[in-house]
């Protein structure tokens, strides 16, 4: 009896020691605002997480929470991760900004990365992608391809990131067709396929023959496919849902950034920053150009190369909707102005909700 007991204790101790020895060096945790299966925004973040897992193998353990609503629930979720031993937490939506800062204050040893926000702290970094570069390109394609000269834009919330996307799209379109018209519908949600489909139908009924979106589901493109118009995928390649309707998509590739930051934590070199990279650094990728004539593809690729070479789509002359000048000829708009954009460019007839 005694020997069995001793044997059991020894076995237990060994397994305990063994499991400790196999523990990962870092636990990286991810908070998503939508389901991983949205095949858009959150899906792409999860692809980044999977890339981290693949790259680092056993050294890094990952965890994620999906469909966490922005607001008080978010704070609870982030805090739970911090308590669970996560060393690096990625909060992937603008609305997580204040919860992240709050939790970061309570856990100074945990590092936080907040996507698309603007508040940083010693242990909170922000990261963003220059999606507007992609928007400029699709704006150009839209102006070239549209027969009615009207595009429909399904927008989520009037935050600077969305507004700068709309403006960049318009500037791209205006560079081809100065009289291009844009109709914007605000659905006040990041993800509601039914509502997005309704908005797309309304826009098409109003004369738009190009649909683009800043929401996360594939519903608008599906509607475009059914109605015989065209559009652009958002955040990931949605060609499977709209074989004949998708021209291209703006794909967010978070993998290189995530791997880089995890490596920095492992090396002890992590520090807070505001990262903002785009096509040049490979954080924004255009999906293969489909359903387009060759000359339009050439034009798009040429613009891509131009942006890779350092050209900023928000380069003057840019006039605001109220007539004032935002940037003079040849002058680049400052980063701060783009990140805090709350005005429309001239040519958009709508009023911007405040």
């Amino acid at each position, binding site marked *: 009896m005694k020997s069995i007991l001793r044997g059991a204790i020894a076995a237990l101790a060994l397994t305990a020691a063994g499991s400790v020895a196999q523990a990962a060096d870092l636990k990286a945790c991810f908070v998503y605002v939508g*389901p*991983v*299966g*949205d*095949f858009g925004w959150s*899906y792409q973040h999860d692809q980044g997480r999977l890339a981290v897992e693949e790259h680092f193998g056993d050294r890094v353990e990952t965890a994620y929470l999906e*469909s966490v609503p922005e607001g008080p629930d978010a704070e609870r979720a982030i805090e739970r991760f911090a308590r669970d031993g996560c060393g690096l937490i990625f909060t992937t939506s603008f609305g997580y900004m204040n919860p992240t800062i709050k939790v970061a204050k309570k856990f100074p040893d945990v590092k936080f990365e907040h996507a698309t926000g603007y508040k940083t702290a010693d242990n909170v970094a922000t990261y963003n992608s220059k999606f507007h570069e992609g928007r400029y390109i699709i704006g150009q394609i839209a102006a070239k391809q549209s027969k009615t000269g009207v595009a*429909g834009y399904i927008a989520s919330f*009037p935050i600077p990131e969305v507004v700068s996307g709309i403006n960049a799209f318009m500037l791209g379109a205006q560079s081809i067709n100065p009289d291009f018209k844009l*109709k*914007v*519908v*605000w*659905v*006040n949600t990041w*993800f*509601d*396929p*039914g*509502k997005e*489909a*309704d*908005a797309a*139908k*309304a*826009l098409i*009924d*109003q004369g*738009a023959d190009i649909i683009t979106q800043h929401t996360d*589901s*594939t*519903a608008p493109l*599906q509607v475009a496919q*059914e109605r015989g118009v065209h559009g652009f995928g958002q955040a990931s390649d949605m060609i*499977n*849902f709209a074989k004949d309707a998708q021209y291209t998509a703006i794909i967010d590739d978070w993998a290189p950034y995530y791997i880089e930051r995890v490596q920095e934590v492992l090396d002890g070199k992590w520090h807070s920053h505001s990262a903002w990279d785009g096509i040049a650094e490979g954080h924004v990728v255009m999906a293969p150009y489909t359903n387009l004539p060759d000359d339009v593809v050439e034009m798009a690729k040429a613009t891509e190369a131009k942006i890779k070479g350092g050209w900023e789509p928000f380069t003057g002359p840019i006039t605001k909707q109220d007539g004032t000048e935002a940037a003079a000829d040849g002058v680049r708009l400052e980063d701060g102005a783009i990140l805090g954009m709350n005005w429309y460019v001239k040519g958009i*007839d*709508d*009023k911007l*909700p*405040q």
Partner: protein
Amino acid sequence: MFEAVLLTVITAATPLLIAAVGELVVERSGVLNLGVEGMMIMGAVVGFAVANQTGSGSLGVVAAIVAGMAMSALFGFLVLILVTNQVASGLALTILGLGLSGMIGEAFIGVPGLRLPELYIPVLSEIPFVGPVFFQQDALVYVSFLLVGAVSYMLFKTRAGLILRAVGDNHVSAHALGYSVVRVRFMAILFGGACAGLAGAYMSLAYTPQWVENMTAGRGWIALALVVFASWLPFRVVAGAYLFGAVTVLTFHAQAQGLGIPSQFLSSLPYLATIAVLVLISANRRLTLVNTPACLGKPFVPDR
């Protein structure tokens, strides 16, 4: 263009209509089933899954109905046999449905769906304006019209409907008269579940042919509210569903027109409009009181 708007209004209103009519029958029998959202989403995922695996939209619809009925059967067992609190059980059903559907649906995320074909009724759909709007819709829209007519006829013109309403108004007397309250209510609950499942199938097979988690996005709760809005009268449910659907669609058109109305206000407009109309039509208190099932939500335990 007005025709196109009307078409989208009909498609937006149909899932609400079907789910609400089912819930109306359940509530007329005296049971308050708050699980409509859960049953709807289960219908959506099962319908999509079966349609995807078998390649047949009709089989998907049938499977969705069965799934809705299965969920409601569970609810029926809880509230009729075990006599648990109806409100709590309904809420639990919703939460169960939402989670279970997410689990089942994981394999189907990102899979393009198949859409139910439209049915063209030969001569009638050629009529200039009314034709395409009313006679060139997918099958489930016609089912929704038929459903409302059938439920209205059954409730007010048949003996079965009379018994149902009697059970809902005074289950003690109905029991004393010899009617099996539990059996009547269970059948009503199954019917409500079938309708909710059908409404869910409409969402994932006709409205936006895909599956994403939470795709009903609260429509079950709106259907529930519409039943009360309609004072438990089938044709008023139609009015409510179409009002809600119309205002939702019109807010998008208003935005697309560039009318400059704040979009946040427009988002709340469908709910505000429904409340406003509710206040107006509730002016006739007698009508409301006459139609409210007096035993709604009350548990029934016969003294043996």
